């Protein structure tokens, strides 16, 4: 080693401050989630779907903001299948009246609550149950995995709608919670599979090994290291599935085994609207369009979130 370059270890602090790294130069700490959020805000897909979803959620929580009309008030004498008045924005007669003379606009607004509540609550239940099952199976492996995965497979093998039909027909009274529990009971398997796969990958990571080497407890490893890193694909799947539960509720209601009158829901209205398909198609089409828009909004949101969280872009 020539004497001219006597430089030994650079003064560590000087080195670190003198030559900041790429991102460090950018300043603030940026977590993966804040990076994802940064991406999301710039994604038109996300902006459109988020506006739609916020709009729908407000409608579900405060239907009174959108209409003063009562969705259950029937005026057969005056409004029997009266056609929509497309110019009367946000008025009682905007979307016309159904066969019992009830305002379709009011029913669409109030129907959002049941439809969205079913979907949201089912999604939450399914995500929690699926994540727990998938995480335990994936992390512990062995006989725990064998048992949990077989159970998952059995549930997965049941066709979703058919299964829901079988379960629901065994209940005399189909309260909204019955529908929710039936859907959740059958729907968690997809999440469980995704979570298990995700955990299987994450548990190989060196940082999990590092935590074990430090003597971290299993609970700590699962909650601090595995869960936060394994959850991203679960969230994506859950968001997309949420749209699916809205259409599942509509399908079951349409078949007459989901929600039923007097509950106001889009599915219920689609079901009753089908009888007038020939002479007053709008009675069927309007709630159907609402279902489609909502499902689409959640699928778009899921896609946007997936793009933002895609590790390949990181």
């Amino acid at each position, binding site marked *: 080693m020539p004497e001219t370059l006597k430089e*030994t270890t650079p003064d*560590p602090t000087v080195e670190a401050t003198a030559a900041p*790294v790429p991102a460090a130069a950018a300043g603030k700490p940026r*977590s993966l989630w804040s990076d994802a959020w940064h991406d999301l805000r710039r994604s038109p897909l996300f902006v459109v779907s988020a506006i739609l979803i916020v709009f729908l959620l407000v409608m579900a929580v405060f239907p009174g903001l959108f209409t003063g009309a009562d969705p259950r008030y029937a005026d057969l004498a005056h409004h029997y299948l009266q056609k929509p008045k497309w110019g009367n924005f946000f008025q009682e007669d905007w979307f016309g009246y159904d066969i019992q003379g009830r305002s379709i606009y009011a029913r669409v607004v109030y129907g959002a609550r049941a439809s969205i509540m079913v979907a949201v609550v089912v999604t939450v239940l399914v995500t929690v149950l699926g994540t727990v099952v998938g995480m335990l199976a994936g992390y512990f492996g062995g006989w725990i995995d064998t048992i949990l995965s077989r159970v998952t497979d059995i549930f997965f093998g049941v066709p979703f709608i058919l299964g829901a039909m079988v379960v629901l027909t065994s209940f005399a009274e189909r309260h909204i919670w019955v529908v929710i529990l039936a859907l959740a009971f059958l729907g968690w398997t997809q999440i469980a599979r995704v979570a298990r796969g995700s955990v299987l990958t994450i548990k190989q990571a060196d*940082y999990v090994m590092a935590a074990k*080497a*430090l*003597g971290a407890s299993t609970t700590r490893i699962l909650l601090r290291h595995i869960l936060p890193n394994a959850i991203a694909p679960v969230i994506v799947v859950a968001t997309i599935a949420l749209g699916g539960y809205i259409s599942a509720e509509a399908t079951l209601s349409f078949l007459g085994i989901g929600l039923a009158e007097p509950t106001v829901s889009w599915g219920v209205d689609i079901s009753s609207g089908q009888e007038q398909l020939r002479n007053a198609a709008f009675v069927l089409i309007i709630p159907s369009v609402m279902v489609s828009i909502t499902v689409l909004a959640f699928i778009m949101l899921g896609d946007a979130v997936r793009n933002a969280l895609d590790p390949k872009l990181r």
Partner: protein
Amino acid sequence: MAELKKEPVDATPNVAEVGTVNAATEAEAVAAVDAPVAQGEPILQVRNLVKHFPLTQGILFKKQVGAVKAVDGISFDLYAGETLGIVGESGCGKSTVAKLLMTLERATAGEVFYKGQDITKLSGRALKAVRRNIQMVFQDPYTSLNPRMTVGDIIGETFEIHPEVAPKGERRRKVQDLLDVVGLNPEYINRYPHQFSGGQRQRIGIARGLALNPEIIICDEPVSALDVSVQAQVINLMEKLQDEFNLSYLFIAHDLSIVRHISDRVGVMYLGKMAEIGTDTQIYDHPTHPYTQALLSAVPVPDPDAREGRERIILSGDVPSPANPPSGCRFRTRCWKAQDKCATEVPLLAVPERFRASDTPAAHESACHFAEEKDVVHAA
């Protein structure tokens, strides 16, 4: 494991008898683990360590159809304050040794004595105390740090797991001190790993390893994922820390030049067995095992003139599968010296007979029936 019994397990006449401690209670075990060890005394003693990974078939009813013999009976000592380098190619079991010493994997057989305590048999509080004293630095700085946690959380987690090391109020300051020690700006405490370069991440990994004031750090390829110009920085840092904190390193790597630079002693592994072990001069300048010689001669040297005078031994073929290793000497299928004896008799890791009397540097442990000295590193 019938297979195991057929082969004679390496007798290790040159490894000192282990002074075991029989702790009756957990408290005694913890006390034994926390006792200091004098410089130059063995701090970690590995005896006939074996790890077989079972190969299974079937989904519901698994049955074992074989085993990958990742580590198949190795013994060595790590002395306080020294760096023991372990070299070998992929699949030789060197990373499994690291995991066994960290008790991240359960040994199939054999013992690892840390201050006289067999850590393969410990659990609970005593094991946690051992873990505080044996830490690890991982190969890949990109996967060894949890991307969802800040640097402060990553290093600070060690104190959450071992709260007795630092009281709650002091933790943040301790983390900042550690960042300073490894040459990072303490203000970076709230940043996330992806905001750092590979070299800086490895410094974070080292800070985490240092946090508990361990006595031993096991380094599994700590610089192989880094750029050449950054490798030297990290190596220098590790040497500085060793002096400062009186650490013992077990330095596992495939880069023979770096291992020579940092190690006091070097062990060469091949297919789960130790082929040769000795001081760095003994191994690099006076290798006696043909595998070591081939390995050294194959290293591309960044000096065309030096290279032209060197003899190059190009081995044929690949490393055999550890699931089905050759009988006798594991290296015989690629060895140019192999004879019938090599297929039937497992060579023991011992100082070869012919060198035993003399005082040459070739007199170090080598597991070859036909050990002879050959300088392959220096130009002829």
